[in-house]
């Protein structure tokens, strides 16, 4: 089901090799192993933040994937994470709902705050956290059950039994994910029979069915055809009226189409972070300029 010719996964070697050779303060500081403070534009700092990473670092065993990232994520806005593959985008968003707990040997330092409280604080209710933070994955992952059962899965596991309540919220979520009209007559059919784009919108419906505060999306369109991609992009902008969206994308056109703010990451560091238009048209750092103009990464 994956798009032919599409490759994914970490390739940090490529990114490093393709980087420009000289004249770039941040890259040279990284080379020298010095700590790097990214450029975060005032317009971002002025926004009320829902998520806030503060000096946040992460290690997979001995190898460090995130280097003291400090990054607020504004409420009810779409924030895009861009950067060459292997730079730590997925790693960063998977910390917000602690999906990285699944990986053996992960260690973090610094703070990752959701509404002011550190999600890595001891005694954190991880299950409660994940109810507040929805996630959409790179590859659509519908469960092998009916469309309806998929959408109400998060409600059911949290103990919702009322049929009318489930039906109502399923409809609301499916409408919210712009899928209702296509599936309303076959809610009882298997979700696996949907097209890839429909499956991904179903996964979005499922993620918003439980009314999370934040929606994390890790390259949600990379397995979709262009038409489905457009529909999902429209959807992302719609849901940002109610949810805070943090989306990873390796596609810069997509970032500029859907997001209000864009953060450029490189080698596990946050390099520049500002309003999307600024990042793409008027970046402050030469590294960002290089990357968004497609000259490396």
């Amino acid at each position, binding site marked *: *089901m*994956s798009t032919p010719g599409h490759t994914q996964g970490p390739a940090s070697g490529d990114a490093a090799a393709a980087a420009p050779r000289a004249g770039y303060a941040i890259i040279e500081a990284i080379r020298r192993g010095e700590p790097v403070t990214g450029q975060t534009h005032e317009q971002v700092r002025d926004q009320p933040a829902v998520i806030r990473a503060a000096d946040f670092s992460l290690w997979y065993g001995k190898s460090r994937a995130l280097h003291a990232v400090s990054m607020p994520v504004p409420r009810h806005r779409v924030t895009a994470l861009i950067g060459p593959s292997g730079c730590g985008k997925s790693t960063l968003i998977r910390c917000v*709902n602690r*999906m990285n707990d*699944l990986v*053996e040997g992960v260690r973090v330092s610094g703070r990752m705050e959701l509404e002011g409280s550190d999600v890595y604080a001891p005694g954190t209710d991880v*299950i*409660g956290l*994940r*109810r507040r933070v*929805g*996630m959409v*994955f790179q*590859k659509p*992952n519908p*469960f*092998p*059950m009916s469309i309806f059962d998929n959408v109400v*899965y*998060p409600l059911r*596991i*949290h103990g919702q039994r009322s049929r009318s309540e489930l039906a109502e919220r399923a409809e609301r979520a499916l409408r919210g994910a712009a899928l209702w009209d296509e599936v309303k007559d076959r809610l009882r059919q298997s979700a696996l029979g949907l097209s890839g784009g429909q499956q991904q919108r179903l*996964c979005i419906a*499922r*993620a918003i069915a*439980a009314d999370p505060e934040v929606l994390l999306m890790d390259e949600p369109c990379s397995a979709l055809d262009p038409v489905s991609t457009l529909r999902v992009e429209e959807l992302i902008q719609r849901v940002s009226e109610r949810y805070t969206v943090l989306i990873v994308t390796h596609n810069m056109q997509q970032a500029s189409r859907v997001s209000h703010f864009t953060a450029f990451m490189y080698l596990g560091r946050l390099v520049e972070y500002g309003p999307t238009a600024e990042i793409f048209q008027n970046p402050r750092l030469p590294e960002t300029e290089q990357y968004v103009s497609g000259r490396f990464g």
Partner: protein
Amino acid sequence: MPPSKARRSGGDRALGLLARGSAVTILGLLVALLATLVTAGAPAAARFGASFLTETEWRPNTLERPRLDARGEVVITGGEVEIEEVPPRFGALPAIWGTAVSSGIALLIAVPLSLGAALFVVRIAPRLRVAGPLSFMIEFLAAIPSIAYGFWGLAVLTPWLQTVAYPAMERLAGGTWVAGWVFRTRLADGTEIPVGLTGKDMLCGGLVLAIMVIPIVTAVARDVLRSVPRGQLEGTLALGATWWQSSWGMMRYARAGLFGAVMLGLARAAGETMAVTMVIGNNMQVAASPLAPAQTMASLLANEFKEASDQLHQSALLLVALILLVMSLALNVTARSLVVGGSSRTAAAH
């Protein structure tokens, strides 16, 4: 990496031929075995027909008994009681029943334990760094010869059931209907007998079988669960599922393969011979109580085949063997297609 052309033409081709030859040979052997059993079982099948599967009397010897007249009185001619001869009868129902009940008990115990163990190996053991040793142990347990399990059953389990467990159960059950059902049983001919006296019975057989099938069911279930795509597990967890809820999600995704694992376990339990023969009591009867001694199809063959001199007796036993073979073939084929089908569906979804 694709093998180079040059190497492919040499050793590779020879190996390929050998592999194909072996596959054909194995298939040929299976067909020959089936043909032999069909031919050998034919006389018994012709004689008893479908009643072979439904009759409860299994009597290899000719019975001599006083002839009775129409009023049910003994016929006496010339001062002698007149004797009539009743020819042997073969009804395999007791062995089918014993197989079903003991395998059923085995699965009832083994399936939850095996699924739990497989989940542990897949989801918890890697974190504790014991997945490797644990997997090795499971495979090792699966490789222990069945007679070892039989000896353990005979030397440890049977006396414990007989002297500790059953008396305790009987005290607990008291005079309730449970005691009436478990500790006394009515046979097909209407006689009621006490059971649970020897500790060699269907329950004991079921327990030993459970221990024997746990490793294989666990090993297959582990492989099936491992092949569940990561997105399924992460999908449930990201929605706030608990450990059990996400495990349930994995099992639902892998349900076909897990069912296959259970079928393989059933095939192993139903076909197991040595261990069961040692602990099941070897009594051809159909009793409702799991504490009644019984016979399975396999134990029947083990017990009687070497002493079956009579043609019809041999034919009846070979007919039982045929039923057993066909059943376990069917179970294995279904199980394999479920396990393999399950993982190929998984692979396609990757």
